[in-house]
């Protein structure tokens, strides 16, 4: 286990919508090592994006962190002032790339202008006053573009975002996000909008640059296949909780939680032509009306009485392999064959 960079302890977060209280994150505990790639998977509404945004404290006003800590390099990010977050953390030590690079770039400014703006801000807070010339920033921007594999960066830097394809825009975002100063990259569905061949290019780039700078990555996606290739470890989330966490290959080969097993069985890539896919019965419950006990029990084919009564804790069931299923923990059931 590498030295931890990010440690999340007991993080619990509510969205307060009028009289409805939605618990979007419930007792999230995990740590991310230096240089490690951690995958976060789960269906829409499971809280995976909220988790990424909570780390950067970029949540909407209705969100309220009830308790917990986000320890980053030994400092609790939740207790920093807004100014400290802005000057030292966001866009400096922790950066984020989003699903739609189109929305992250301003359409009326040139790519070069937007990149040098970022560099200037980063420089201002990092170097503390030693003034650089515009030309230096421009050169630096060109180097970043080159690093991300964009051909002819000297000319491309004067282009506008609409002149770039989706894949190239995502390269620009990665170029802005990953540099020697960044120690944590949050990628939220960063390649979901791209074609498979471009997706493979971008994921390769993230992996290479992260390895080069020793950056840790929290890679949020619903695509389990991408995580199989990208992530060292993976966590599966459901209704605001972590259901399972462990080495990617171990979790995929022998999931300890029935929900993870179900997700894997519903993938067409794992099924032969003509055989039915697993469709998990029912729906993801609304976060303000979670079922009692294990929140997955109404949909779980294996549920017993105990699952309705007790909330399963996330326990280390094997070395480095965590799971939150009472049947596993108390009855010793380890295999889940849905169909």
């Amino acid at each position: 286990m590498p030295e931890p960079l990010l440690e999340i302890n007991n993080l619990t977060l509510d969205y307060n919508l009028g009289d409805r209280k939605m618990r979007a994150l419930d007792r999230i505990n995990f740590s991310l090592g230096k240089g490690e790639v951690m995958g976060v998977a789960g269906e829409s509404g499971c809280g995976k994006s909220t988790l990424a945004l909570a780390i950067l404290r970029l949540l909407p006003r209705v969100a309220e962190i009830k308790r917990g800590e986000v320890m980053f390099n030994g400092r609790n990010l939740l207790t920093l002032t807004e100014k400290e977050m802005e000057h030292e953390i966001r866009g400096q030590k922790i950066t984020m790339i989003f699903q739609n690079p189109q929305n992250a770039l301003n359409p009326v400014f040139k790519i070069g202008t937007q990149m040098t703006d970022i560099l200037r801000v980063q420089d201002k807070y990092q170097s503390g006053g030693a003034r650089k010339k515009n030309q230096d920033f421009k050169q630096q921007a060109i180097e970043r573009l080159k690093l991300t594999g964009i051909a002819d960066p000297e000319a491309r830097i004067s282009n506008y975002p609409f002149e770039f394809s989706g894949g190239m825009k995502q390269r620009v975002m990665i170029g802005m996000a990953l540099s020697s100063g960044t120690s944590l990259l949050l990628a939220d569905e960063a390649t979901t909008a791209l074609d498979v061949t471009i997706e493979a290019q971008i994921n390769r780039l993230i992996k290479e640059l992260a390895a080069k700078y020793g950056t840790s990555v929290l890679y949020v996606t619903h695509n389990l296949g991408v995580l199989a290739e990208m992530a060292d470890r993976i966590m599966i989330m459901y209704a605001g909780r972590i259901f399972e966490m462990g080495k990617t290959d171990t979790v995929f080969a022998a999931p300890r939680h029935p929900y993870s097993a179900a997700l894997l069985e519903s993938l067409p890539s794992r099924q032969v032509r003509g055989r039915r896919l697993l469709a998990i019965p029912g729906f993801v419950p609304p976060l303000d009306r979670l079922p009692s006990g294990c929140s997955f029990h109404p949909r779980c084919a294996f549920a017993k009485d105990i699952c309705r009564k007790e909330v399963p804790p996330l326990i280390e069931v094997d070395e480095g392999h965590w799971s939150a299923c009472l049947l596993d923990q108390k009855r010793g059931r380890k295999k889940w064959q849905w169909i």
Partner: protein
Amino acid sequence: MAVDLIEIRNLKTHFYQGKGLLSKLFGEGLKTVHAVDGVSLAIKKGRTFGLVGESGCGKSTLGNSIFRLVEPIEGEILYKGHDVLKMDQKELREFRQQAQIIFQDQFGCLNPRMTVGQIIAEPLLMREGADISQEKLGHEVVELLRAVNLDPDASVKFPNEFSGGQARRIGVARAIALQPQFIMADEPTSGLDISTAATILNLMQDLQDEMGITYLWVSHNLNQVKYMSDDMAVMYLGKVVEKGQTKDVFSQMAHPYTKALISAVPKMDVDKRKKTILLEGEMPSPINPPSGCYFRTRCPHVYQRCKEEEPPLVDLGGGHFCACHLHSN
């Protein structure tokens, strides 16, 4: 051997881009987008034909051309032997009753101001005219909702009251309302969660088993096409580069583009994980396609001949075709 329901011969659909009125009037400076550029393929009755390729390869344009939602400039589309492109309005109307589309945007294709019952009843009203009794109509709507595993109460609700997966089911219910022979499904699970996507795939397979519907399955998801389709074609820049039975294309992929595309799909199982073939750059613009083979600008095996000659689609045996000079001798 199944018979062909739809046969497409040398289909070309081009779009024109001009700078302004003058170029439109005189045809000067007009750019031609070769969206579909000489495609031939046959869709067999009762089976599923998968059409794959990256964004901008022309797969959706090809699908839309079959319904004449865009007008092709050349070629033939034979539906049970009749050329769709030569049909008059009346014939086209009949054809469009037998051929339906499930659209990619599950909410965009449902009128937000109509109830689900009205949406599903609309094709029935179009066919029957005003003669159909309300009672019979209501009965049919309930049957259709049941067929796609939706609650009959859904008919009085509006589309915004449904989740993405349910909205997709409404689209499916409308598509099967007239008992069509052929359905084009354009990215039918895009934007859906894993387990929701699985329910849609199961549903579509059940409907095919019960009603014998032929599918044209347009998708960029190769795992899904492998799982769903019997035959498939891979498109690149408006052309078919490889086609054949799905099992042959996956087990004996011949075209370098197919190989790269399939290798780029992330693999779940460690032992199946081979080296991903990373393609350089992106697809060229269909306004100015490269000379010779369209794929040569990104192909790892490119040689002189690829620049000069366009590779023909060659039969590799058993109806497996590939357009690449590596296989054309």
